[in-house]
């Protein structure tokens, strides 16, 4: 029996009058990778951003239904607190260009005005960079700007930055779509290694990526959750016709 971290229940999300996520219910399990896939515009990003309430940055959005992190309804706590528990990695690597590698990793604490002892900071930075498989490459240039790194390294820096906050869940929105194949492979194996520390939800366009790295897969179509289950099962014996058509490349 898997232990549940996140429970999404009858959840819908609207941009003005347009419904982008339509009555979705699904559970996310601890220390697993859950992939969300589906054709462009089906609501993957929208669903993902609802989980850490980033959608609230867009004017005129509305949600119905519930999302629970363990036993807490996420809308009942402040988004600030929620976002420290649910980290995010974006489509394009976005390290802060004004900060050094070190400061980028610790940025969550700095931005939030959380004061740490020098030694504690050093530990968090080293630990996060090691988890993000970047430590060996940057340990001698921690105080150089993060923007000098390659795209793949920058993305791993962003992973380290999110991990530094010790989140329960890490949301990844097509984290490899701006990277070359080699950097992509590196991020994928990183995702596998990170499972022991954090639960991940991964949005991806790329079916084989979902197959490679995820334990569970959700297939979204036009805002609806068509099918959700163990990745292996979904890729071998999909239950819904639309899932099968998508997997065989009939659309998307």
């Amino acid at each position, binding site marked *: 029996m898997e232990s549940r971290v996140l429970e999404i229940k009858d959840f819908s999300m609207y941009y003005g009058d347009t419904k982008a996520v339509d009555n979705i219910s699904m559970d996310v399990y601890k220390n697993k990778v859950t992939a969300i896939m589906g054709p462009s515009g089906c609501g993957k990003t929208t669903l993902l951003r609802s989980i850490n309430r980033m959608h609230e940055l867009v004017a005129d959005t509305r949600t119905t239904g519930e999302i629970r992190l363990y036993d807490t309804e996420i809308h009942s706590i402040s988004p600030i607190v929620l976002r420290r528990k649910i*980290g995010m990695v*974006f489509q394009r690597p976005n390290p802060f260009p*004004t900060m050094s590698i070190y400061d980028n990793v610790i*940025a969550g604490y700095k*931005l*939030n005005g959380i004061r740490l002892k020098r030694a504690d900071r050093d530990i968090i930075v080293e630990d996060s960079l090691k988890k993000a498989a970047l430590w060996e490459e940057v340990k001698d240039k921690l105080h150089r700007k993060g923007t000098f790194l390659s795209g793949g390294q920058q993305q791993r820096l962003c992973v380290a930055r999110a991990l530094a906050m010790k989140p329960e869940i890490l949301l990844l929105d097509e984290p490899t779509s701006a990277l070359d194949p080699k950097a992509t492979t590196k991020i994928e194996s990183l995702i596998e290694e990170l499972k022991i520390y954090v639960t991940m939800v991964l949005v991806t366009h790329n079916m084989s990526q979902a197959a490679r790295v995820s334990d569970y897969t959700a297939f979204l179509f036009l805002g609806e959750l068509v099918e959700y289950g163990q990745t292996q099962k979904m890729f071998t014996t999909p239950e819904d016709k639309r899932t099968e058509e998508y997997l065989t490349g009939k659309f998307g």
Partner: protein
Amino acid sequence: MKSDTVFKYVLHLIAVIILALLSLIFITLFVNSLPSIKSLGLKFFISTRWNPVKGEFGALPFLVGTLITSFLALIISTPFSLSIAVFLSEYFKRGALSSVIRSGVELLSGIPSVIYGFWGLFVLVPVIRNLELKLHVPPYGVGIFTASLLLAIMIIPYSASIIREVMKLVPADLKEAAYSLGATRFEVLKGVVIPYSKSGITAGLILALGRALGETMAVTMVIGNANVLPTSIFAPSNTMASIIANEFSEAVDSIYLSSLVELGLLLIVVSAAINIISRWVIKRTSKV
């Protein structure tokens, strides 16, 4: 010839004309200040006495007056321009309140200098006089502080609109990254937006300072026109621009006229120097 080449020649021609005009202005000022440069020499810059009747022409009081009023105006205006820019670019991007403020600021920049001067005389001067009475300093009403305050109001639209444009250029995904780490709007502003736009903000402020340095009419009307080295920020004084405006028509003998022209030359040099220094500062701060 292709139209592209023609266009290029025209552009070059325009550039040359502009450069020629600039040099012409500079040369005219230089030639006309020669009598004063020759007869006064270095004394022009270090003497604090300006007494045309006795043939004393010291520029120091005006140099000091100009620098103090301009920098004071910059200091006073900065919190306001920053707040307006932040308000318009981060907090209220749309809506009635934002457009009211935006058009208000734009209108401010369109008001002629002399109108500011009137407003300063009728409104600001009595207010400052009351303040001076409370502070037990000589209640002139007019003086450096009044001029700086008026200048501050006049330059706010310039710096505010540049800073706003610069802040709008901060990439949305950087702000999102900060929000996703649990930052509040203010923390995003402080930790991401301002550091990212630091050099642009500096540029905006320096442009405003440039305006303040050369502003003539409004300053002349409220600064008190005292040709002495100022002793306090409430004291009446004169800037280089305001003494030129004030005394140019009465300058009859050639040294008097020539030293006013030399003041103009000095004003240009000071403005240019501040411009160059600021470029250097911007370059250094923007080096990521």
